C-alpha cells in the first residue's frame, strides 16, 4: 500500500499511509478511535474506492483486479455482519458457496471450523440467539472458510472475555502458522504485542511509527518514569530543558518521561532538580515500557518533533 489517502467530505480519514506486509507475517495497525484503521481496511477489501495512492494485495492491484483480490482475502469486520435469521451452519454454508467452494469441501470445512471455534453444539442455532463472543467466533470461522491467503481482522477480540480472547489469539496464531498472512487492527496493546511480527501505530490517518514490538518499546528508552508533582506544568518544562531525560509528556496523571539510561540512576537527579526549583514531588513510579506506554507516547500531536529526537512538552487529553 503506497500513499493511500481517503476523505469523507472534509474529514480526512486516511492521510497518506504506506506500508507493506510480508507473506506469512502478522501485521498490526494499532491506533486510537477514529485513527482511520477501519477506513483503510474498507479500501483494502474493495468496499471503498482507492481515492489516491495504490494498493496491492497478493500481487494484484485492487483497482484493476478487485475480483481477484476479493478471492484471496478473508475478512472479519469490526461490526457484526451476520444475518440474524440464519443458523451457524447456514452462515458458513452461505459464505463457502459465495466463494464457489464445492459442496463437499464447504460442508467438511464448516464442520472443522465449528469445532475449532467451539460452536458445534450451536450449529442449528439462529445467530440472533448467540452471545456476543459466539458471534465473534462465528465471524472468525467464516473468515477462515475459504482458507484465505490474506486474512484481515478489524478488532477481532472487541467485546470478548479474557478467556475467549486468548482462544481467539490461539486461532490467529494457528492460522498464521499454516501460512496465512494476517493484517489486524486493534487498540489493545497487549494484543498487538502478543500476536504481531510488526506493528504500525496509526494516528490521525497517518502511520506514526513502525517496528516490531520489542523495537517499539526500545524507542522509549530504558525506563518510563511517572511523577506527580505540585506543579506538573512547570516540572515538565524544566525537565524537558534539563537534558536529564529523553522525552517528556504531560498527562492527567502527572509528568511522564522516558530515560536513556537506567531510570533508577536518573530519578535522584530529577528529584533534586525539581526540589531546587521549589516543586514538590508527591509520588513517583518507575517501570519498563509496556506497549501501553508506547501507544500513549506516540499517539499525540507533536509526534514529528518527537521522532526528530527533540524533547517536547505535550498536553495530552488522552490520559488514562
Amino acid at each position: 500500500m503506497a500513499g493511500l489517502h481517503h476523505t469523507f467530505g472534509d474529514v480526512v480519514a486516511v492521510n497518506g499511509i504506506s506500508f507493506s506486509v510480508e507473506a506469512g507475517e502478522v501485521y498490526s495497525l494499532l491506533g486510537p478511535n477514529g485513527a482511520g484503521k477501519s477506513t483503510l481496511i474498507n479500501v483494502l477489501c474493495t468496499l471503498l474506492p482507492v481515492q489516491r495512492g495504490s494498493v496491492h494485495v497478493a500481487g494484484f492491484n485492487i483497482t484493476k483486479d478487485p475480483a481477484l483480490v476479493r478471492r484471496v482475502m478473508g475478512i472479519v469486520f469490526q461490526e457484526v455482519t451476520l444475518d440474524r435469521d440464519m443458523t451457524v451452519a447456514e452462515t458458513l454454508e452461505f459464505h463457502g458457496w459465495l466463494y464457489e467452494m464445492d459442496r463437499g469441501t464447504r460442508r467438511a470445512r464448516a464442520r472443522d471450523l465449528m469445532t475449532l471455534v467451539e460452536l458445534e453444539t450451536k450449529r442449528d442455532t439462529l445467530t440472533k440467539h448467540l452471545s456476543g463472543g459466539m458471534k465473534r467466533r462465528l465471524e472468525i470461522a467464516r473468515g477462515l472458510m475459504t482458507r484465505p491467503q490474506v486474512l484481515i481482522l478489524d478488532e477481532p477480540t472487541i467485546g470478548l472475555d479474557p478467556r475467549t480472547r486468548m482462544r481467539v489469539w490461539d486461532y490467529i496464531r494457528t492460522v498464521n502458522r499454516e501460512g496465512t498472512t494476517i493484517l489486524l487492527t486493534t487498540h489493545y496493546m497487549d494484543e498487538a504485542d502478543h500476536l504481531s511480527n510488526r506493528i504500525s501505530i496509526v494516528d490521525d490517518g497517518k502511520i506514526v511509527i513502525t517496528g516490531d514490538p520489542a523495537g517499539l518499546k526500545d524507542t522509549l528508552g530504558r525506563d518510563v518514569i511517572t511523577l506527580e508533582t505540585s506543579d506538573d506544568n512547570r516540572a515538565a518544562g524544566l525537565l524537558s530543558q534539563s537534558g536529564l531525560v529523553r522525552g517528556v509528556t504531560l498527562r492527567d496523571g502527572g509528568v511522564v518521561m522516558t530515560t536513556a539510561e537506567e531510570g533508577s540512576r536518573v530519578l535522584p537527579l530529577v528529584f533534586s532538580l525539581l526540589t531546587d526549583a521549589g516543586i514538590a514531588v508527591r509520588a513517583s513510579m518507575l517501570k519498563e515500557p509496556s506497549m501501553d506506554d508506547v501507544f500513549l507516547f506516540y499517539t499525540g500531536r507533536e509526534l514529528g518533533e518527537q521522532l526528530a529526537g527533540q524533547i517536547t512538552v505535550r498536553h495530552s487529553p488522552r490520559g488514562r
Partner: protein
Amino acid sequence: MRQGFLTIAWRDLLRFVRFRALLFSSLVQPALWMAFFGIAMSASFDRLAPVGVAPGGLPSVNYLTFMAAGVIGMTSLFVSFYGGIVILFDRNWGLMREIMASPIPRGDIIAGIGLSVVAKSILQATLILIFGLLLGAGFFPGTTPLTGIAAYLGVMLFVAVFSFGFLCLSAAISITLESPEGLQGVITLLTMPIFFLSNALYPVDAFPPVLQALSVINPLTHLVNGIRFFAIGEDFFAVGETYHLTAIDTATSLLVLVLFAALMYGIARWRFAVARVT
C-alpha cells in the same frame, strides 16, 4: 459454473420459508383476494354485464375469470416490489458487506434475488389459478393436458419477466435509499397508479385518452394481457367488452416486458456499481 446467483437465491428463499408469518400471508393473501374481492365483485359485475349475451358468438367470461389475471398481476407486483427490501436490511444491518467484499459479480446479486422473487411470484400465481378454478373460474378453456401445460407455462413466462423487472427496480431503490420507510413510501406512491392505470380489474377502453396512453405503457397492462391470452384465449367477451388478443399482440407485450426488465436491470446494475456499502 457461476453459482453466485444460486447462493443468493437460496438464502433469500431460506428466509422466505423461515418466516412462517411471511410465508403464510403471502400464500393466503392471493386466496383472500380471489375469495372476497373476486366473489363480491363478480356478483355486481356479472349482474351489470351478464354472462352469456356475448355478441358474435364469442365465448363469454365471468368476472372472476377476468379479474384473476389482475390478481396475479397485483400479487406479482407486490412480491417483486418488496423483494428488494432484503437488500436494504442487509445493507443496514447485515450481510451486504460480506457479499460486496466477496468475489460474486454485482449482477449475480441482482439475478439471485430476482430468481428467488420469480419463484415466489410463480408460486403465488399458481395458487391463484388453482384457487380460481376451485371457485369456478373458467381458465384454460378447451385445452388438452398438453396445450394446458403450454398455456400455464406461457402465463408463468409473463409473470417471471414482469416480476424480474420490478424486482430490479426495487433493488435499485433499495441500494440507493437508507431507510425501509423510504422504500415503503416509493412503493406506495408507484403501486397505486400502476395498478389503477391498468386493465387488471376493468377494461381501459373507456379511459380518457391520456390515461389510456399511460395504461398502454404500463407493464402491468402487458402482463395482464399476456396472462389472459394464455389463460382465457384470443377472443372473448367480459365486463361488457370484446377482447381480441392476437398472438402478435401477446408477443409485443412480452417484448415490452422484456425491454422493461432489461432497462430496470441496467438501472439496478448502475446503482450497485456506484453504491458504497460500509
